[in-house]
């Protein structure tokens, strides 16, 4: 899975791209994914993740596109006008990343955040290679990763 964030202050755009190599969706399903009453969950009739992101883009003069291919995966590209007064802040992306990494340690995650000309990136495949036998969700690893992400984002000016 890849999460890319790009803050292009000069062009006044912000992009968030989420790419996975999961099941993928055909065109019909990708279209329906934006309907808040479409979900593959069985416990609920409501699925709000993508509809809310799409609306957040629109409210800040941006847009959201879904590209998907059955058997290959999905790419969600969200764009925002960076300086728009209604653009929601990115929030605590550090803890969000830790949540994704520890909740699903078997999923390889690449996070790349560009802000103007600086970049912070973290690839759990490389982290796992460095750790050897030690699991990604071992507590000591989690706190080391948290600190690593925090300082990386601070250096970007993005935290």
């Amino acid at each position, binding site marked *: 899975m890849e999460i890319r964030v790009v803050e292009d202050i000069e062009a006044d755009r912000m992009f968030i791209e989420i790419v996975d190599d999961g099941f993928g969706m055909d065109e019909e399903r990708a279209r329906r994914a934006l*309907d*808040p*009453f479409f979900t593959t969950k069985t416990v609920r009739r*409501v699925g*709000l993740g993508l*509809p*809310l992101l799409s*609306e957040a883009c629109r409210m800040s003069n941006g847009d959201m596109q879904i590209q998907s291919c059955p058997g290959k995966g999905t790419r969600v590209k969200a764009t925002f006008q960076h300086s728009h007064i209604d653009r929601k802040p990115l929030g605590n992306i550090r803890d969000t990343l830790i949540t994704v990494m520890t909740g699903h340690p078997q999923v390889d995650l690449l996070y790349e955040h560009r802000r103007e000309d600086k970049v912070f990136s973290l690839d759990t495949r490389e982290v796992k290679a460095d750790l050897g036998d030690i699991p990604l969700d071992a507590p000591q690893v989690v706190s080391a990763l948290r600190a690593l992400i925090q300082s990386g984002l601070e250096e970007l000016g993005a935290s």
Partner: protein
Amino acid sequence: MTLLEAAEKLGLKPVAGQSRLSRELDQGYVSDLLSDVMANAKPGDIWVTLQIHQNIIAVATLKELAGIILIGGRQPEKQTLAKAEVEQVPILLTDLPAFEVVGRLYQLGITGRR
């Protein structure tokens, strides 16, 4: 007081979800951030907002809200009305701003949480 009675007293115009207008009102919630409503609204609340996108219907059903009052003369999007009818979520329109509508609801005894 039912939603219908409150609507009549305040001049709110129901445009969807007619079958649920006889619902008793107790409390309300006002917010334009859907994440905030999802976190803090309670079942049975009447929701006052300026949001017109169909996501409001999804949130209203998820949180079992009594209905949605759209303020400032705003009109729901076509899809919003359609979904509101399917889900029977009452939508009521007013030209009043949120502060005024909430104040008048409060005078009728529909309060927030303390």
